[in-house]
C-alpha cells in the first residue's frame, strides 16, 4: 500500500497523510463522511449535466412538438413529454444550467457581500456597527416575497432580476454569522500588530481578517446554493422568475403540471425530484464541509 512513500525515505515521517495514494485517501474520506461524499457525487453529476447539456440531452428543450404531447415515459422519451410535446428529461437537464447559474451566482455574491460587510462591521465597531446591525435586522425581518414582487415589478422578470431578489436576503444572514466570528478575531494581537504597523483599514480587513473567517464563509456559500435553487424554483413557480421557454425546474412545475397532475403525473413528479435531489446534494456536501471545517463539531 505504501509503495510510493517507501521509495522516498524519510518522507513518510513528515507527511504521512500526503504519502498515501490519492485513491486511498479518497476512500478514507468517503468512509469518514459517507453522506458528504454522496452529496459531492450528486453535485458533480449535476455540474457535469449542466455543462454538457447540449451533448447529453436527447431532445431540444425549447422546440414544441404538437405531434407528441403528454406521452408517458417510454423508450424514446424516458421521462415523458409535457403539454407542448417537449421532452421532460431534456428540459430537466437544461434546467440544471438555470438552477446552477442562479444558485452559484446569488450564493457567491450574497455571501461575499455579507463577508465584507460583516467583517467591516466587527472591525470598526461603535456607531457604524450599531447602525449596520439595525439595517441587517430590517432585511432579516422583511418578507422575502414582497422583496421579490417589488424587484420584479420594478425591473421586470428574468434571470438577472431573480438573482437580485434571491441575493438580497442572503447578505444579512452571512454578515451576521461572519460578524460574530470576526468579533473574536479583532481582539487577537496580530490585528493590533497590523494596526501598529500603520496599515490602512482596507488592508487590515481584506488581508488580515477576511482570510480568518473563511470557514463560516465557505459553509454559508454551500448552504446558500441549495437555498437559492429552492427559492428560484418557488419564485419561478409563482411566475416571478424565469420565463418560458427557458427550461427551469420551477417553471416545469408551473407550466400545466398542476392541471395535468392526474392525467400526466410525470410532469409534476420529475421536476420536483430534480429540485429535491439537487438541494439534497448541496446540503449533504455543506454539512460535511461544516463538520470538517468547524473543529467544535468534529466527531471525536
Amino acid at each position, binding site marked *: 500500500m505504501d509503495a510510493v512513500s517507501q521509495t522516498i525515505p524519510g518522507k513518510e515521517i513528515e507527511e504521512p497523510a500526503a504519502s498515501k495514494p490519492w485513491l486511498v485517501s479518497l476512500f478514507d474520506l468517503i468512509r469518514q463522511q*459517507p*453522506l458528504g461524499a454522496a452529496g459531492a457525487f450528486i453535485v458533480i453529476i449535476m455540474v457535469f449535466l449542466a455543462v454538457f447539456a447540449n451533448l447529453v440531452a436527447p431532445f431540444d428543450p425549447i422546440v414544441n412538438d404538437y405531434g407528441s404531447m403528454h406521452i408517458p415515459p417510454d423508450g424514446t422519451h424516458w421521462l415523458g413529454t409535457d403539454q407542448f410535446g417537449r421532452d421532460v428529461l431534456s428540459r430537466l437537464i437544461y434546467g440544471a444550467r438555470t438552477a446552477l447559474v442562479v444558485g452559484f451566482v446569488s450564493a457567491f455574491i450574497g455571501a461575499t457581500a455579507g463577508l465584507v460587510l460583516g467583517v467591516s462591521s466587527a472591525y470598526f465597531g461603535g456607531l457604524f456597527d450599531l447602525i449596520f446591525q*439595525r*439595517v441587517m*435586522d*430590517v432585511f432579516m*425581518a*422583511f*418578507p*422575502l*416575497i*414582497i*422583496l421579490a*414582487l*417589488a424587484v420584479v*415589478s*420594478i425591473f421586470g422578470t428574468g434571470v438577472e432580476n431573480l438573482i437580485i431578489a434571491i441575493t438580497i436576503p442572503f447578505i444579512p444572514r452571512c454578515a451576521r454569522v461572519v460578524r460574530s466570528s470576526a468579533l473574536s478575531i479583532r481582539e487577537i494581537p496580530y490585528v493590533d500588530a497590523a494596526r501598529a504597523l500603520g496599515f490602512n483599514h482596507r488592508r487590515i480587513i481584506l488581508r488580515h481578517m477576511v482570510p480568518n473567517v473563511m470557514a463560516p464563509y465557505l459553509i454559508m456559500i454551500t448552504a446558500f446554493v*441549495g437555498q437559492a435553487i*429552492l427559492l428560484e*424554483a*418557488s419564485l419561478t*413557480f*409563482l411566475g416571478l422568475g424565469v420565463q418560458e421557454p427557458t427550461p427551469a425546474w420551477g417553471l416545469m*412545475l408551473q407550466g400545466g*403540471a*398542476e392541471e395535468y*397532475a*392526474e392525467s400526466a*403525473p410525470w410532469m*409534476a*413528479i420529475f*421536476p*420536483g425530484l430534480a*429540485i*429535491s*435531489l*439537487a*438541494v*439534497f446534494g448541496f*446540503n*449533504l456536501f455543506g*454539512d460535511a464541509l461544516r463538520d470538517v471545517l468547524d473543529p*467544535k*463539531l468534529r*466527531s*471525536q
Partner: protein
Amino acid sequence: MYQYIIKRLLLVIPTLFGAAVLVFLLLRLIPGDICDMRLAGEGGLVDEETLNTCRAIMGIDKSLWLQFVDFIWGFIRFDLGISMWTGQPISYEIGLRFHLSLQVAIMATLSAIVISIPLGTISAIKQNTWIDYFVRAFSIAGIAIPSFWLGIIIILGLLITTQYFSGTPWMPPIQFKPIWEDPMHNLSQLLWPAIATGYRYSAVATRMTRSTLLEVLREDYVRTARAKGLLEKVIINRHALKNAMLPVVTVIGIEFAFLMGGLVVTEQVFNLNGLGKLFVEAVDHHDFTLTQALVMVVVTIFVFTNLIVDIFYAWLDPRIRYS
C-alpha cells in the same frame, strides 16, 4: 432582567421604522399606481383629469413626505386604514385571512416539535451510526424538498388513493370554516398544507436539536454527570437536553414567524385564501395601503416573536443578560 427587556424593546423601534421606510420606497419605485391599474382596466385612454381626481381620492397626489407621515401616524395609532382596491378597512381584510394562516402555522409548529425533538436526540446519541445517517438524510431531505411540490404530490396522492378506494376522487374543501364551527371540514382542508410545511419545519428543528445536543454532550458538566455514575437517560433528559433546547426554541420561533407571512406558494397550491395570497394581490393591484399594512403586520410578528424568544433565552441563561 428588566433592563435587558427594555433594551431589547427599544431595539424593536428602529427595525419597524426601517421596514416601514423600505416598503414605502419599494412601492413608490414600482411604475404605475392604482389609478392607472383601475382606469386602464376599463379600456381606452383616460384623460388626465379623471386620473387626478382618482389620485386625490386615494391620497396619492400628496407629497411623499405627507404620505409617509400619514402611514407612520396610522401605524402608531394601530389604525391600518382602508384598502385602496377593495375600499374595506384593512383590519377586516387581514382578519378574514389571519385565522387560516395562524391555524396552519400552529399545526405545523406542533407537529414539528413532536417530531423533531425525539428524532434529533436519538440522532445525536447514536452519532455516526446508521440511525444517525438515516435521521440526517430524512431531515436534509425535508429541507431539500420544496413544500409546494410536496403539496402537489399530496393532492395527487389523495386523488389517486380516493379514486382507487371509493371510485370518486376526493379533493380537500376550498371554503374555509373555523375549527369550532365544523372541525372535520376545517381539518380536512388544513391538515394537508400543515403536513407539507411541517415536514420542512421539523427537518430544520431536528438538525438544530442534533447539532446543539452534540455540542452540549461534550461539555464538562456532562462528563461530571457521567463520572458520578448517573444513568444515561437522566443525563440526557435532565442535564443535556435542557441546555440544548435554547437554540431549538430560537429556530422554532423564527420558523413560526416565517410561516405567518411566507406561505405564498403553498397557499397557491392548496388554493387557500390566506395572508400570502393577500400579499400577492395587494402588490399586483398597487394597493399601497394594504401592502404597507401587511408588511408591517408580518414584520411586527417577526420582531416580537424574536423578542419573546430572546427574553425567554435570557431568562434561562443569565450569561446573555449581562454580556
